[in-house]
């Protein structure tokens, strides 16, 4: 199940790569799957890599928003990385807000953002 998503724990962060078009059911399940994975791996951050995702519609947009809110409630953070420019333009024109969703240009910047946020929680 959910062959189109990979989850790799690295340095207390889950690197979650969506590897193509997500079926609606897989997208619906994703927040729960990631919530469980945060607990299992005792991770504090999710790096959500959408660099090969070609279409973010209002349905997937809401799932991304749900993931960001769920991880905050669990004391963790989500950073979305790698949005294609064409997808980013479409998201804004579609009217998706994604206000609570942190984004970064690439995996490296996203990882360093998560390290900063997670590090600050322990100071």
């Amino acid at each position, binding site marked *: 199940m959910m062959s189109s998503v990979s989850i790799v724990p690295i340095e207390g962060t889950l690197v979650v790569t969506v590897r193509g078009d997500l079926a609606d059911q897989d997208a619906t399940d994703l927040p729960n799957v990631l919530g469980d994975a945060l607990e299992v791996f005792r991770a504090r951050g999710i790096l959500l890599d959408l660099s090969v995702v070609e279409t973010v*519609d209002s349905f997937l947009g*809401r799932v991304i928003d749900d993931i960001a809110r769920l991880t905050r409630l669990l004391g963790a953070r989500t950073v979305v990385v790698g949005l294609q*420019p064409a997808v980013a333009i*479409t998201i804004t*024109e*579609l*009217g998706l807000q994604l206000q609570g969703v942190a984004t970064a240009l690439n995996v490296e910047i996203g990882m360093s953002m998560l390290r900063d946020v997670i590090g600050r929680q322990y100071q």
Partner: protein
Amino acid sequence: MNPLPSEQRVPIAAEVDIILARKAAREAAKALGFGMVDQSRIATAVSELVRNVIRYANDGQGEMIVRAIRDPKRGNGIEIIVKDDGPGIANPSEALRDGFTTGRGLGLGLPGARRLMDELVLDSGLGRGTTVTTHKWCH
């Protein structure tokens, strides 16, 4: 010049058809010479419209038709028609407003699709199904 693809019809019957329909629309748009951003706009609009059929039509049954169009003033374009014979929408003009929803969605589907395309006409009424006709022109 790219050869214009002939008319394509994609049946809409299950959730997986959302992915198939937007793939077909994206490929047609690409073949017609639309750029990356327009391909994304068209595929996303189709995703919204086809999901509406799955969510709201009787048994989620419908059809998408994609074809090349040409206008003396606007040049080459793509026409996408998404139709179903579901219960129809009682107040079509309301349904094009942001935030209008009868389901669990964000209410962005139809108005969002209209913003992504150049033209969108919603033809619906209680008991006579729904047909959405959209155009995008190669600028």
